[in-house]
């Protein structure tokens, strides 16, 4: 079995404890307009030309392997579980000393759940701490199956309003909420993660809805991820429309306000940059 992987990023410090390697799955059912990994949305391998790297040869080969500058880039690669394992074990010494491990992210991991499950089983055999970052948008049983092999679940909560969520990000909030509850009931460690996106998720009503849900599930910890523009250049070379191009990042005080609001509800809040 092979999975479609877009990137394996070593030395990540934000997506779970310690020093971690993130395996980014390619393909996502949602369409969050703020997505900072737009190369991970499509379920297809994508080939693009990154103009900022291009040295303008007299004739362009449009061939990733031939391009001397690396401007021609391929996003996505089918990998076996073994191939992924080979890559992630390279930093096992760092996981061991820092209580780190491997985080599966995307794209949406649940869209390749069979592959993810095999990968997680192998990781656990190697005594590696496992985490997932998911939108929760997938089959409940598949998610619970993965949870059996996971030490930590980072569960994204974005737009809580059912209609808006469907219209804007193509998400079914009923399914997401149901899955979150199922995970919590399975006694796994779950931390909700809230992207703070001006005009989308960063408004009082949405934040309160999130707090209500989190409290009702008796979760104690929450991550907030302030909007950033680091992904914006990727839209250019992917030739995709980026609606948030001119949206300023939220100010420190705005982020602090959200943090304080959540802390008032006895939540332990971590700002993830």
């Amino acid at each position: 079995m092979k999975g479609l992987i877009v990137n394996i990023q070593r030395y990540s410090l934000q997506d779970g404890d310690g020093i971690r390697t993130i395996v980014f799955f390619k393909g996502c059912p949602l369409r969050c307009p703020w997505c900072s990994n737009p190369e991970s949305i499509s379920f297809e391998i994508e080939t693009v030309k990154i103009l900022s790297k291009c040295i303008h040869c007299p004739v362009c080969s449009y061939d990733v392997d031939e391009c001397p500058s690396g401007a021609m880039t391929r996003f996505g690669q089918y990998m076996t579980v073994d191939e992924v394992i080979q890559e992630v074990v390279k930093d096992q010494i760092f996981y061991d000393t820092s209580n780190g491990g491997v985080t599966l992210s995307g794209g949406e991991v649940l869209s390749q759940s069979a592959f993810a499950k095999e990968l997680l089983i192998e990781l656990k055999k190697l005594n590696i701490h496992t985490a997932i970052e998911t939108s929760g948008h997938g089959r409940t049983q598949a998610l619970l199956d993965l949870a059996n092999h996971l030490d930590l679940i980072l569960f994204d909560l974005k737009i809580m309003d059912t209609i808006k969520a469907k219209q804007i990000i193509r998400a079914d909030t009923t399914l997401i909420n149901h899955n979150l509850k199922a995970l919590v009931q399975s006694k796994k460690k779950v931390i909700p993660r809230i992207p703070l996106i001006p005009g989308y998720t960063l408004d009082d009503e949405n934040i309160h809805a999130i707090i209500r849900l989190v409290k009702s599930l008796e979760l104690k910890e929450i991550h907030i991820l302030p909007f950033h523009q680091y992904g914006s250049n990727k839209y250019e070379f992917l030739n995709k429309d980026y609606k948030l191009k001119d949206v300023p990042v939220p100010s420190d005080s705005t982020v602090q306000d959200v943090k304080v609001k959540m802390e008032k509800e006895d939540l332990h809040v971590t700002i993830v940059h």
Partner: protein
Amino acid sequence: MDYDRIQLLKQQMFDTTREVSLERALLYTENYQTTENQPTIIRRAMATAHILSQVKISIREGELLAGNRTIKPRSGIISPEMDPYWIYNELDTIENRPQDPFYISEEDKKIYKDVLYPYWKGRSLKDYINNKITPEVREPVDKNIVKLNQTDKGQGHIIANFEKLLQSGLQATVDETSQLYKKNPENTFYDASLIVLKASQNHIVRYANLAMTLALQEDDNKRKDELLEIARISKKISKHKPSTFYEACQLLWYMCVILQYESNASSLSLGGFDKYMYSFYQNDIKRGVSKDNLREILTHFWIKVNDVVLIRSSNSAKYFAGFPTGYTITLGGLTENGRSAVNELSYLCLDTYQDIRLPQPNLGVRLNEFIERSFLNKTSETIRLGTGVPQIFNDEVIVPGFLNRGVSLEDARDYSVVGCVELSIPGKTYGLHDIALFNLLKVMELTLKENQKESFITFDDIIVRIKENIDRYVQLMIEGSNIVDEGHRAFAPVPLLSSLINQCLDKGKDITYGGAKYNFSGVQGIGIANLSDSLYALKKIVFEEERISLEELVDAMDNNFEGDVYETLRIRLINKYDKYGNDNDEVDNMSSDILRYYAKAVEKYQNPRGGIFTPGSYTVSAHIPLGEAVGATPDGRKSKEQLADGGLSPMVGRDGLGPTAVLKSISKLDNYLTTNGSLLNIKFNPKTLEGPEGIQKLSNFLLAFMKLKLQHIQFNVVSVDTLRKAQANPNEYKGLVVRVAGYSAFFTELCKGIQDDIIRRTEHNL
């Protein structure tokens, strides 16, 4: 602690213009001229004794520790007996040179030209060496494959047996030497040692007298008492062993200054300070001396070690920029029986360093499986301040490395660091740690050019021929190093230093004659990052993909990749072939293979003192001048561009996967073999180390470093932004201390080239 006074001492030291002082040179020369028929070692001893009795001494305002090498702070003293030429040639430029400028008055220039230069011209160490070096040995030097060091200055890079000095006192050493001399009256080493040991005692008595005189003139009662105390201590320790921490620090510093007069050398390092000072510290605590008091003395000591700067030729200053004087201290480590040697004083050393944050002392911490987590965290906390201090050494690889060199288990556990990152057994080793540099990349360049027309050559053939050339030039480097070694024996024995190194007194031999217990010569293999990057790209593009022939590639190198076609080729070489530092086995195994080959080639040879050659891999700041000596290379590096910094670091900007991959790449080298030392620079963005978690993160990272069996790592934790600002407004950033190589320096005292290099080194987020 009197913080105002600390501030005053710092100002006193750093707010003055550095000057050249001819005083030592004149006193030395004046005496040397009167001893023409005596053996060299006696002449050296008498000249040193003359300096010690005549040189102007001072106790500066507010000082609790006496002992100044020169009246004015941070003056450069010169030793024309080693090399009278470079300063003669640079008299008019030294004031305004880009790196390490020193002021010299017109009057002194004249004295130098009329008095010193004419006497030493033709009869210096440099002359001896130049006359002995054969055309064969000169070939690799001229081709910039080999750089021979220590041809123009006295003996340093050594740690005296301070433990013995402090535990028994000067008189005990004098008595021991006297008795040996009585039994062996023909032995000139004993004779010479006695002359300088007694002169050292008298020199300290001079300070006692000066302190007394100053005390009598002093109106302020508090200061008067302090001066009387300096007088009492100095008088006592000129003979007897110290009994308090204060007295021990004072004797230690006097000996540091006195040893400087003998050899005017870089890196008469301090070794395991927290080990040999601990009994004094402990006794004081038992006696009820307040911790604050001890802390104050220690802080004064830390400031003091910044007073000695080494004036170098402008060429040498490029290699060792920003005064790596080498008051290097290694904290923690292992006890004789293999347990953690961390004690209360180890913590205090880091705590007090956090207060002063100066380039010296060059603190290092030894890391091992037994290190206390609290000390590891204290270490991380200090690193996070951004001065590059302390650097980290890994016992788990260094101790076994020494065992492989025939060092006893107990001695190996006691290892310490001299200079930047050179590994040594304190009080027992004369290691000539910096005798030569070997430019491995240059050897590759030469080999490719020699073989460019061979149409049927394979990649394996190329590797074989590179190795043959390594053999050939290593042998010549050894010959050259041994000539320099013998030059020091003939011209620059150091009887005082030798009397403080184990076995010299027993054997009746100066260190330059092989008196020390361990006798190494350290030679550094440089350029493995660029070398493996180049070989890997060459293998792929010429032999596997067959895009171009070897001849075409060499042609592109000869043309420095000028022109569109070659530039496209260069871009391909940079982008399409993986580089060292990204944890790719195929690339990393190349550097591993060549560095190991170099190590094995070197360790076969002996030096005239009966010791072996030991390989190291560090560049100090030499990656810039050594890069200037190499043409364009198949890794896409252009002609004269710098090499990778540090020694083991990846080429700047070519490590794209973060620091874990960098460490993994280096872990594939056989780090047990580079027993002379190696160096890795890592830069972290200060933001990512914020908060209490930041400390834990760094500590955990260091534990992984330890498990990966790397020898050394050091950090710059300064943002690029701060460095740019400091470059633009040097006056506002006078106190900014950064890591250069195995040492730290004031950022604004570095020339632009090295500043830029520090800015460029990849910044990682932790």
